[in-house]
């Protein structure tokens, strides 16, 4: 257990430090954030054609309300936590890679729900938007990471050493 947690903390700090470098920001974080805005806009347009996405901004052409997807809202940090937890846990590499693929999809999928829900919540009540944005959704995304990790650990073969 101790080795897992030390590995987890080390990997997390390393990945987070990498995320903050200009190169990773330019070639991964910013393009991913723009893609997230485009995916969110694409989904919303199915039932609300007045929505437009430009860069990391999702905007309603109907009332002008816009949300900008910034650090902490693009799901990158939550993904880093999941990646660190899966890589640090003793498991076969094949299981790790499959877990990462499905887990990242699950975390980013819920993050799209977060972006879209906040976009509409903000148009309805800005105080509630602030509360949900700054506190509630942050907690829910971490809960998602925890559940995904627990589910993944559950699928591991018994032969894998347990974190005891």
């Amino acid at each position, binding site marked *: 257990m101790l080795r897992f947690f030390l590995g987890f903390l080390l990997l997390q700090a390393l990945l987070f*430090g990498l995320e903050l470098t200009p190169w990773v920001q330019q070639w991964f974080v910013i393009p991913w954030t723009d893609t997230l805005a485009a995916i969110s806009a694409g989904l919303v347009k199915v039932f609300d054609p007045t929505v437009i996405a430009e860069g990391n901004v999702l905007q309603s052409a109907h009332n002008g309300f816009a949300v900008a997807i910034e650090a902490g809202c693009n799901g990158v940090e*939550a993904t880093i936590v999941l990646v660190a937890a899966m890589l640090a846990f003793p498991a076969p590499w094949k299981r790790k890679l499959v877990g990462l693929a499905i887990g990242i999809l699950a975390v980013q999928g819920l993050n799209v729900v977060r972006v879209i829900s906040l976009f509409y919540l903000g148009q309805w009540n800005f105080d509630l938007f602030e509360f949900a944005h*700054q506190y509630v959704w942050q*907690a829910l995304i971490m809960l998602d990471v925890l559940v995904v990790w627990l589910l993944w650990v559950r699928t591991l073969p018994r032969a894998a050493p347990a*974190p005891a």
Partner: protein
Amino acid sequence: MPARATSLGRFVLRVAAWLPLAFLVWYLTGPILAWPIGLLMAAILKLGFADLVARVQQEGHLFTIVSTLKPALATTRELASGVVSVEVNFLLYSFGLPLLAALILAAREAYPLRKLALGYVVLAPLVCWGLIAEFLKRVVFDTAPAVAAQTGFGPLQREVIAFAYQFGSLILPTVAPAVFWILTHRAFVERFTRGDGGAVKRTR
């Protein structure tokens, strides 16, 4: 106590059921929860940044950190007679507390209140980390160059402050409660991960 079976789905549903109440209690009791953390933060600031900080004031869940830095006037390069103060929000760094409360209560393990209290004590320094890092980040990066220069921080220290702020605001508030919960519920987590239906045996 008899063994009780609970699935991960049920556990998540219980967490979701506890979360609204936990958030409500956390928000309403914010000023009370913030008070000891304000004392701890003031002590850390006095110890580590005595030359930068004059005092810390609390109003509700907000702290005003009054610095010793002199504000720069916009029209001249002279320093004004006042001091720079920074307002930081306790809630921004402590939203992991309601998540932790919901996880602990949903697990239905023994001594939930003791674990909650311990969780608060363990997370308090990490909340301080976020608050202090935001204060430092704002006086170093968000003030006029004449003000930032008074802090005396070099390039490396500025980088450390930037990293500490990002880590303290984006990672610690959510990860720390989850890590604490796993560490204090190891047997519960291991029963889940064994895939035996999560049969939970309550022991006292």
